[in-house]
């Protein structure tokens, strides 16, 4: 079974620029998550989708971050404009359900904002 795919793997941008990350979850997984992981910390949930609907975006900085999951399959996370503190690894994960289910993670996108 193919795993969670993410691209790009690395991205370097200047502050105030915009950037987009793409995620393709495991086939058939209805739940998709975007996490932000700052060096030395655990992942922090940014947004959770169930099919193409948003379940939880309470920790998403909506003034600069946006995400969509059209057709309930792959997803895009965008940052506009980026700030220095957005430097982190952005992880996408998927699961077949919401409760008691393990999450499968992609390799992540390492973002550096200069």
């Amino acid at each position: 079974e193919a795993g969670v795919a993410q691209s790009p793997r690395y991205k370097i941008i200047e502050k105030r620029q915009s950037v987009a990350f793409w995620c393709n979850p495991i086939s058939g997984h209805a739940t998709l998550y975007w996490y932000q992981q700052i060096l030395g910390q655990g992942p922090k949930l940014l947004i959770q989708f169930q099919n193409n609907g948003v379940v939880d975006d309470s920790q998403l900085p909506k003034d600069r971050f946006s995400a969509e999951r059209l057709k309930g399959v792959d997803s895009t996370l965008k940052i506009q404009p980026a700030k220095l503190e957005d430097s982190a690894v952005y992880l996408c994960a998927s699961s077949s359900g919401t409760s008691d289910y393990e999450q499968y993670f992609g390799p992540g996108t390492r973002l550096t904002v200069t």
Partner: protein
Amino acid sequence: SQKIEQNSEALNIQEGKTATLTCNYTNYSPAYLQWYRQDPGRGPVFLLLIRENEKEKRKERLKVTFDTTLKQSLFHITASQPADSATYLCALARRVSNYQLIWGAGTKLIIKP
């Protein structure tokens, strides 16, 4: 808000010994708790899940315990191997409709040959 504490310093263990990692939490008791392994440059990989009404879970050389009175979970790797070297993260599921996971910062485990 929920606070999760894992050993911030790296844990060095001799090959063949048992490694024990700690996850302590404050405030409310989670619906369940998961342990993940993360290697450098990669996403976390699920290892074990333990529910609030379970005391212990085992999988091959791995064992997890959950003590809701102490607000603590212990993660054990028996007969440790250098290949077990990684960062281990615990994640607690909040008692909300989406069972949002709150993650610890992880403990770096180093198994010396």
